[in-house]
C-alpha cells in the first residue's frame, strides 16, 4: 500500500492534504464555538481604559501578574469566578501571563478601588507590608497616550468589528454602549471626561490639577483599566 503511495506523488499529496486538513479543523473549529464569542457582560475597552492597558503592558505588569483564574476552589475563593475564554474577546493580545509573582488581576476591579490603587502604586509596601512590588511614582507625572489608544480603537473597530458605539449586552439584561470618538479631539474629550470621574476619587492634588487642566496622567488611565477588570 505504502509503496503504491510512494510511487504516486499526486495521491500522496492528497493523503497529506486530508490529514493536515483534519488536524486543522480540530484546531480551528472550536474558535467559532459559542464559548469563544464575547461573554455577555464583556464590553470593549473605552479609550481611557485602552490607554491604561498600554501603560500596563509598557510597565510589564504582566511579567508578575497573571490575568487567568483557573477553576480551582482555592483560586475562585481568592479571585472570583474562573476565567472564560469569551472574556478575552476584546484583549489584543490577552495578558494571561505565565507567572504569579504578584496576585492575579483578572477581576481586580471587583475587590479593589481607585483610592487603594492610588496608595498602592505610590508605595506598595505602605499598604501591603512586606510587598516586593516596586513603586510606580512616574505614572503620577507621565501623561497617558490617548492618541495611540484611539488609533488602536479605530483599527480594531474597523478590522475586527469590535462593537464601539453599538449596544453590548450586559449580565442584567440591559445593554451598554462604549463610545469611541470620531476624531482625535473627540476621543481626547471622551477620555478626559472618564478621567475626571477617576480623579474625583483620588487624593493626589497634582493628579487632580493635571486632569482639571485637560492632561491625563498615566496613573488615571491605569486605574481606569484596573477598575474595568471584572
Amino acid at each position, binding site marked *: 500500500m505504502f*509503496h503504491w503511495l*510512494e*510511487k504516486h506523488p499526486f495521491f500522496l499529496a492528497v493523503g497529506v492534504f486530508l490529514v493536515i486538513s483534519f488536524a486543522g479543523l480540530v484546531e480551528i473549529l472550536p474558535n467559532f464555538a459559542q464559548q469563544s464569542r464575547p461573554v455577555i457582560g464583556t464590553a470593549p475597552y473605552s479609550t481611557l481604559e485602552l490607554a491604561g492597558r498600554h501603560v500596563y503592558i509598557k510597565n510589564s505588569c504582566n511579567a508578575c501578574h497573571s490575568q487567568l483564574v483557573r*477553576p*480551582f*476552589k482555592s483560586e*475562585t*475563593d*481568592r479571585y*472570583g469566578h*474562573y476565567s472564560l475564554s469569551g472574556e478575552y474577546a476584546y484583549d489584543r493580545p490577552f495578558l494571561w501571563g505565565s507567572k504569579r509573582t504578584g496576585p492575579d488581576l483578572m477581576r481586580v476591579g*471587583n*475587590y*479593589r*478601588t*481607585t*483610592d*487603594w490603587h492610588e*496608595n498602592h502604586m505610590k508605595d506598595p509596601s*505602605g*499598604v*501591603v*507590608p512586606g510587598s516586593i512590588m516596586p513603586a510606580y511614582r512616574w505614572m503620577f507625572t507621565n501623561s497617558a497616550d490617548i492618541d495611540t489608544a484611539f488609533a488602536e480603537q479605530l483599527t480594531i473597530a474597523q478590522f475586527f468589528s469590535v462593537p464601539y458605539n453599538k449596544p453590548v449586552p450586559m449580565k442584567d439584561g440591559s445593554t451598554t454602549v462604549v463610545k469611541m470618538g470620531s476624531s482625535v479631539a473627540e476621543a481626547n474629550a471622551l477620555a478626559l471626561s472618564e478621567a475626571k470621574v477617576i480623579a474625583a*476619587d483620588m487624593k493626589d492634588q497634582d493628579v487632580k490639577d493635571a486632569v482639571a487642566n485637560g492632561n491625563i496622567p498615566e496613573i488615571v488611565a491605569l486605574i481606569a483599566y484596573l477598575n474595568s477588570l471584572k
Partner: protein
Amino acid sequence: MNKLYLWGIIITVLMLVFTYMSVAGSEGGLNNDIVNILAITGAVALVIITVFVVIKYVRQMQVDSVTGDLADENWDGIGEYTNEVPTGWAVTFLLTMVWGMWYFTVGYPINSYSQIGEYNEDTVAHNTKFEAQYKDITGDRLIEMGESVFLAECKVCHGINADGIDGKAANLNQRIEAVSVKYVIANGANNMKTDFPGGMPPMMLTDSAQIDAVADYIVSGFPEGHAGVEAFLMGGCTGCHGEKGEGMPFVGPKLNGFDIATVTSILKDGKKGAIGTMPKFERLNPKQIEAVGAYITSLSK
C-alpha cells in the same frame, strides 16, 4: 580478545568506581537506607546495561552485512528493502489505530474528563463540609474565624490591626471617625442601599459648630449630657438613627458601635465616603460574613 570488549570492561570498572566514590564511599554512605541501596543498585545496573548495549551495536556496525532484496523503485539511487513489516509491530500499529478511532468516537465523548466538572464537585464537597463543620460555631470560635477571613480579605486595605493604615481606609477599632461624620452630614449618604433603601439627605445641619458637636458626640460614644445631644436632636438624626444612635431597621444604620447586621449591610453594598471607596464583598458566604461581623464588633468592645 577484541579491543572493544577491553574498552568496555575498563569503562565499566571506571564508572563503577566513580559511582562507589560518589555515593557509597561518601560521608554518610549507604547508611542501610533502603532508598540509597535501591539507588546504588540502579546506578550499577545502568552502568552495566549501557556498556553492554553500546558494545552490541558498535560490534554490529563493525561486522554486520547487508541482507534482503531491494524494492523495484528507487529515488536517485536510494533504495528500500522489501523486508516484511515485523508482525508484532504491525499488530500494535493496527490496534493503536482501532483504539484511536474508538477513543475519538466513543471513549472520549462518552466518558470525557471535565475540569469544570471536577471543580464543581470540589466546590459542592467543600461547601457541604464547611457548612457541617461550622454550622453552629459561636462566640470566640466565630470571632476567630472572622479574624482569619479579615486577614485574608480585609487587611489589604484596613491593615493587620484594622486601624485603616494611617487613614488610607476606615479605622475599624471605632464605629466611625469624625471626618466621616462631617462628610456624611455635608454630602448625605447613599450607602448600604439594600438594607437602608432611603439613603440620607445632605445638609441636615449647616452650622459648623453644631456639626462639630454632633461629630464629637457620635465619635465619643453618645455620652450623657454631651454638648452634641441637642444638635443631634435638632438635625433630625434621632429620627432615623435613634436617640442613642442604636439605628432602626430599614431606616438608618446603627451608629453607637458595630454589630453583625451593620457589617453585613456594608459588605453587601460596599461603601463610599470621606476616606474612599470600599468594594462590596459578594464572594464571602453568609457564615464568613457573620464571622467578620463578630470579629469587627469584638475590636471596638
